[in-house]
């Protein structure tokens, strides 16, 4: 029983195995991912509020700024670079079709959150869609086009 400053972890990232990686105890997962070149994961606030760092861990959307790299032992991690499934294709196409990004800073997090919404295969009103994405800030679009893209993605998968 001992506490360590450097932790050894093994995990799977975007389908690739990472074995016995040594990470500092204090490093959050987003910083680790960016350091490895997965810079699609963005950092806005590092306190859970903006949603730009949202990734998928063990099948669920999580904030990578609020998970420690030392906690990922045995986990399956997917970042925006790692999705080529049908649902994400539909979501990406609709984001393009509705021009649901301008600068693109919020987009990886928006895509990740949208995927989780769409997977529920439940029709939502525009108001409900806005509540669902209330944890993702976009400073450019005014959200209309993002809501359009999500609405059409839901319709397509139902």
């Amino acid at each position, binding site marked *: *029983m*001992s*506490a*360590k*400053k450097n*932790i050894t972890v093994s995990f799977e990232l975007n389908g690739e195995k990472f074995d016995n990686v040594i990470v500092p*105890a*204090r490093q*959050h997962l987003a*910083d680790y991912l960016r350091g490895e070149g997965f810079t699609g994961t963005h950092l806005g606030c*590092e*306190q*859970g509020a903006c*949603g730009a760092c*949202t990734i998928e861990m063990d099948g*669920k*959307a*999580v*904030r990578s*700024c*609020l*998970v*420690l790299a*030392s*906690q990922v*032992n045995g986990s399956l991690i997917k970042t925006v670079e790692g999705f080529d499934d049908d649902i994400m294709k539909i979501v990406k196409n609709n984001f393009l079709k509705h021009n649901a990004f301008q600068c693109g800073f919020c987009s990886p997090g928006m895509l*990740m*959150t949208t995927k*989780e919404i769409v997977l529920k295969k439940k029709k939502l009103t525009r108001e409900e869609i*806005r*509540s*669902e994405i*209330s*944890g*993702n800030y976009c400073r450019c679009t005014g959200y209309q086009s993002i809501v359009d893209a999500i609405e059409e993605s839901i319709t397509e998968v139902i």
Partner: protein
Amino acid sequence: MKAPDFSYYEAETLSDAIKFKSQDDEAIILAGGQSLLPALNMRLSSPSCLIDISKLKDLNDIRLEDNSIYIGALATHTQVMESSIIIEKFPSLVSILKMVAHAAIRNKGTHGGSISYGDPAAELPAFAVAMNAEIIVSGLNGNRSIAAEDFYLGLFETDIKSDEILIGINYPLVKNNEKIVFEEICRRHGDYAMAGLIAKVKTYQSTIEKLKLVFFATGDRPNVTSKTSEIVVNNGYEYSVIKKSLSSEIDFAGDLNSSEEMKLHLATILISKILKKLEN
């Protein structure tokens, strides 16, 4: 910002975690990390070590017992919202959790973490107090159960001792003639409330017989206002009377979003909103 330097320990058993915590005063429990990691990233806290309990087994079950529902400390908000037991027996908890943060945070944040953190603006501590829940902690000398109302001692301060870890919460079932009603006011869905209220109401032939009001985001802990409840039951709602009574019962504390005066106003309004909900 980035978290300060600390070491990390992944507990394999509950008793390891308890032993570790009792030996190091500056070590701190890590559950879902959804309150702790923001605090570390903002350098509001500088523990020597994080004791990660998130992978402990058997601490996340949700079960229906004879007269109560037990929620294990590590059940995530998402898990609670999706539990068929909670959906059937405790629909009010599902609607309350919808207002707690955002989906990606609810996927990690735990029931026990929220109860132990004792954030006065959080919904769950007020819910536990309103429900007369029993909070179960485990320490070097075994388990102990604390009534929710006695658990909160002040701002982020609870009755958990230095060798103790919260393991679960026991909620008495809601009876047929009882209702849980909930209202909060916040600027953006998922944000902490500017003021919120959870009421447990006992009715008899559609009149209110008994009322327990528990406010959150008003003072330094969940605020129970028994005098005001009595006034509402006996005399009904009158803005100025209720406002005066609340100001004598709650030690209001302002925050970045709302002053004490504003919180007093919002708390008063919340009672009228709850009464309207009950009429419908």
